[in-house]
């Protein structure tokens, strides 16, 4: 059995770890809250954009030729934007996104013989690709809470440019989507070419009897709306990933704190036992000594 001193040392170190994990938990909670607020503040904008797009579609812009919506007949080069975190200690958050991306990539390259480029945002994803010695097309850090719409806008322009110039035929985003407030899921969605989402249209059919005046014309508005819509999607994807990362870290840190607490409890019991054993031993030695004198 370990000596008392050794056990005490361990208790101390576990307690220190517990303090750290507890603090990290609180930090993540605060960051998560901030991200959530930003998402909530951006939601109305995204929704409004979607309704305007719906309205435009309703007026018959649907069959307009817009390069951003044009499906390529034989997509060959595909870009995947992978959004991971910069740091670990957040449970399976990064691994889930990476796994998801790799599986998707395998499916495209092996089964369909396509060329896949990876655009990695976040240190963790980049490091993983370096580890398995696979080249990435480009890698940037995850800007985390410094992420502004301007950054999303720049990123959007870059992706749109790649797509329009024919450098790539399709663009996907692999990120962590918020399903409900407490569940997130690593998902891959196609960003370009844009797919018309018809769900929203049916819901609000009765609204469409309103005849809108369009300035300049619906087509022009439509083609300048789409890039904005894409940027908004990117912006939200990064924010949602940020939220999910902090959520995952919070959960991981909470588990670690609980585990540390449990460990301290067990160790304290062991310590007390060792102490008691020592006392008992000493008493029996004294008693034994006294008995020997008589």
């Amino acid at each position: 059995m370990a000596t008392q001193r050794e056990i005490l040392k361990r208790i101390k170190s576990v307690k220190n770890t517990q303090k750290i994990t507890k603090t990290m938990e609180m930090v993540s909670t605060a960051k998560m809250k901030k991200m959530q607020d930003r998402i909530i503040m951006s939601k109305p904008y995204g929704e409004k954009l979607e309704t305007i797009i719906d309205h435009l579609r309703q007026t018959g812009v649907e069959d307009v030729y817009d390069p951003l919506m044009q499906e390529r007949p034989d997509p060959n080069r595909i870009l995947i934007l992978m959004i991971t975190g910069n740091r670990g200690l957040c449970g399976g958050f990064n691994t889930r996104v990476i796994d998801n991306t790799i599986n998707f990539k395998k499916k495209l390259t092996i089964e369909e013989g396509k060329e896949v480029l990876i655009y990695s945002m976040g240190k963790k994803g980049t490091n993983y690709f370096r580890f398995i010695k696979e080249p990435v097309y480009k890698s940037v850090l995850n800007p985390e809470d410094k992420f502004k719409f301007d950054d999303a806008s720049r990123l959007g322009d870059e992706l749109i440019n790649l797509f329009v110039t024919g450098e790539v035929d399709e663009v996907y985003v692999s990120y962590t989507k918020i399903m409900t407030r407490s569940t997130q899921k690593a998902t891959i969605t196609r960003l370009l070419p844009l797919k018309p989402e018809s769900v929203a249209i049916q819901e609000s059919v009765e609204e469409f009897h309103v005849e809108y005046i369009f300035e300049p014309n619906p087509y022009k508005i439509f083609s300048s709306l789409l890039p904005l819509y894409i940027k908004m999607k990117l912006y939200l994807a990064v924010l949602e990933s940020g939220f999910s990362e902090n959520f995952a870290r919070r959960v991981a840190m909470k588990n670690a704190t609980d585990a540390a607490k449990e460990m301290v409890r067990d160790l304290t019991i062991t310590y007390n036992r060792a102490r008691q054993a020592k006392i008992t031993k000493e008493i029996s030695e004294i008693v034994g000594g006294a008995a020997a004198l008589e």
Partner: protein
Amino acid sequence: MAMKLNCSVLTPERQIYEGQVDFAVVQAYDGEMGFLYNHAPLISELGTGEIRLRSGDSTEYFYVDGGFVEIKNNSLIILAQEAVSKQDMRPEEIESKIKEIAALPKPETFTDRLSIDIELKKLKARLKIAKKQ
């Protein structure tokens, strides 16, 4: 019932204004566009310039750069790509930025020159609004 428009100004990051206004002027892509009560439903693209929202005696000013405006059933929604309220702008800061850019050597390529020109124009538009009384 007062003849007021429900107006909200949104940017991708947050909502910067919400309230009732008598008269709204926005910078559309080709000039200013005014809205009064009972305006016909309209969607338009925005340019770079100012937004004026008048309610009663007070007028609020915003700088706007790109985006869209929609009006329907007397609710006016401005979806700006970028928008700043007049209170949040400091004329001195913008002036020094303009000077900074103007002091730069002329770039070689046409596109670079163009982008600097656009940048300057935007800053000047900002300055104009920031200096309003």
